[in-house]
């Protein structure tokens, strides 16, 4: 606190590492085989090393085309989960005459789901020590086992492993307590959303709420990350999108008012703290992952401040040397739909250990058809790995084999839980802030 009784907000050095998620050239005529090929090629070396250290170098690693019957060997490839209930465009067209639509479900799993391993040219069905219910399509793995002559065409798996987690940079030494606030799922534009809680949170962060002690604490917040779904799903009116333009001339789209409200909120925040705005599933930007930043023209007031940063989803940045990586929740939600895993924190840990942020892209999650790379591969291990729009707040410290320490964080939807997450950069302490409008 200085002589005039004012607190100065701390500053932190920010580096945006999300260059790889920005799309420069948009070419949609390509098929997705290229992404899968890039993914497999990138991960093959690491998986081979992991397989050698786990099972010894004496066991040969074979390509599927060189597979011999009854030979115990290691295969490296991409998993494909064959699911009967998976929504399919072919089924839709095939059933056109009967007009039976495929129902939208919470989970598309079934007991008959089968795992198939694919490498560059061939595929083989996996049996034995594999649980199809906890795996998803798109994960690159190494399997040890053999194709038995008694059961040809199937590979009997003894053990399946994923890559070793990438190395992590050393955690920087930060002398003071500095905080980041993570927020998601504001869902503005929904008439039933109570804006009081959001306003209270904004007042808290800007230092207009609370006594001197809480103001002092809030002055230590160096950044606010709004991780997706700032607009409500109700703003996406699908019926109106399909109507002819001349019929909907007088009707203003739901996003317009919602964006004005969001702009007001951002204006208050940007006037005193750095804000990163990530797009989410219901925000007006590209549908395919990686989602492109929201255009600054949508926020005429807030974009006048340099402290508003419209960023991509997923978002990779480093603050004072601490590497933070995360998404607005679509990858984790997609894995939840296509496996029996329910806990967002478990799924987040799984994406970290398999080395890919969104393994189900491009199979069931929309993804841009890259030709020569897969930007959502985890080439380095972050210090903080988050997913947003989760049903509840969760945190876990993951300890890797090579002394990696990662804070896994699930940020809850603010519109439902009125909770945001605050992380102390000095020691990775993390706790939720719950704004409640009623007396407890």
């Amino acid at each position: 606190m200085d002589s005039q009784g004012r607190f100065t907000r701390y500053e932190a050095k920010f580096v945006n590492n999300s260059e790889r998620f920005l799309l420069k050239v948009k070419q949609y005529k390509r098929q997705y085989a290229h992404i899968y090929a890039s993914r497999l090629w990138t991960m093959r070396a690491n998986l081979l090393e992991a397989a050698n250290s786990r099972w010894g170098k004496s066991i040969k690693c074979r390509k599927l085309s060189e597979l011999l019957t009854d030979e115990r060997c290691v295969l490296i490839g991409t998993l494909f989960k064959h699911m009967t209930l998976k929504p399919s465009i072919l089924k839709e067209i095939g059933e056109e005459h009967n007009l039976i639509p495929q129902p939208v479900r919470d989970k598309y799993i079934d007991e008959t789901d089968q795992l198939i391993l694919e490498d560059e040219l061939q595929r083989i069905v996996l049996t034995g020590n594999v649980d199809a219910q906890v795996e998803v399509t798109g994960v690159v793995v190494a399997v040890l086992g053999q194709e038995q002559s008694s059961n040809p065409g199937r590979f009997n798996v003894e053990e399946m492993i994923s890559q070793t987690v990438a190395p992590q940079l050393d955690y920087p030494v930060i002398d003071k307590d500095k905080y980041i606030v993570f927020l998601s799922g504001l869902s503005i534009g929904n008439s039933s959303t109570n804006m009081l809680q959001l306003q209270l949170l904004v007042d808290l962060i800007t230092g207009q709420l609370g006594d001197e002690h809480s103001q002092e604490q809030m002055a230590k917040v160096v950044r606010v990350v709004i991780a997706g779904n700032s607009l409500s799903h109700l703003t996406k009116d699908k019926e109106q999108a399909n109507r002819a333009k001349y019929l909907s001339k007088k009707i203003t789209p739901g996003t317009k008012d919602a964006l004005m409200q969001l702009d007001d909120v951002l204006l208050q925040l940007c006037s005193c703290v750095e804000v990163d705005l990530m797009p989410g599933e219901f925000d007006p930007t590209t549908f395919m992952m990686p989602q492109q930043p929201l255009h600054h023209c949508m926020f005429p007031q807030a974009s006048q401040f340099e402290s508003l940063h419209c960023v991509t989803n997923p978002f990779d940045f480093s603050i004072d040397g601490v590497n933070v990586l995360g998404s607005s929740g679509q990858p984790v939600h997609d894995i939840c739909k296509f496996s029996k895993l329910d806990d967002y924190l478990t799924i987040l840990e799984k994406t970290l250990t398999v080395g890919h942020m969104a393994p189900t892209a491009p199979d069931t999650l929309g993804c841009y058809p890259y030709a020569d790379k897969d930007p959502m591969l985890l080439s380095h291990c972050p210090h903080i790995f988050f997913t947003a729009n989760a049903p509840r707040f969760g945190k876990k410290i993951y300890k890797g084999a090579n002394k990696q320490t990662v804070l896994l964080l699930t940020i809850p939807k603010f519109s439902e839980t009125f909770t945001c997450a605050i992380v102390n950069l000095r020691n990775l302490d993390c706790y939720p802030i719950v704004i409640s409008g009623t007396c407890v």
Partner: protein
Amino acid sequence: MSEEMATITEYFKAGRSSDIHIKEKKKKKVKTDIAVEEVEVIDASTLELELLRGFDLDSRFGPCTGISRLERWERASKYGFDPPKEVRDIILLHSNETKYTESVWFGLKI
């Protein structure tokens, strides 16, 4: 007789005498056509295109559709597959012609 009599058609094919004459005429025509084809020259561009086609269909370098040949060469080089340098040289020499820059499947509706 104990052994079967061989029929004459085993030695001489059955057919009308007029047909034999027509066949002879056709044979003469075919011979002259072959003579013309043998004179054809295989030039450098055919060889180059063959080499590029071989590069396209080589499964070591991944899928070839929807991507230009140069992009595919760069990608293969990036991942350490050591693609032949002659392919890159040929592509760069003819950078204006889609026959050289794009894969064999370019333009076809797959």
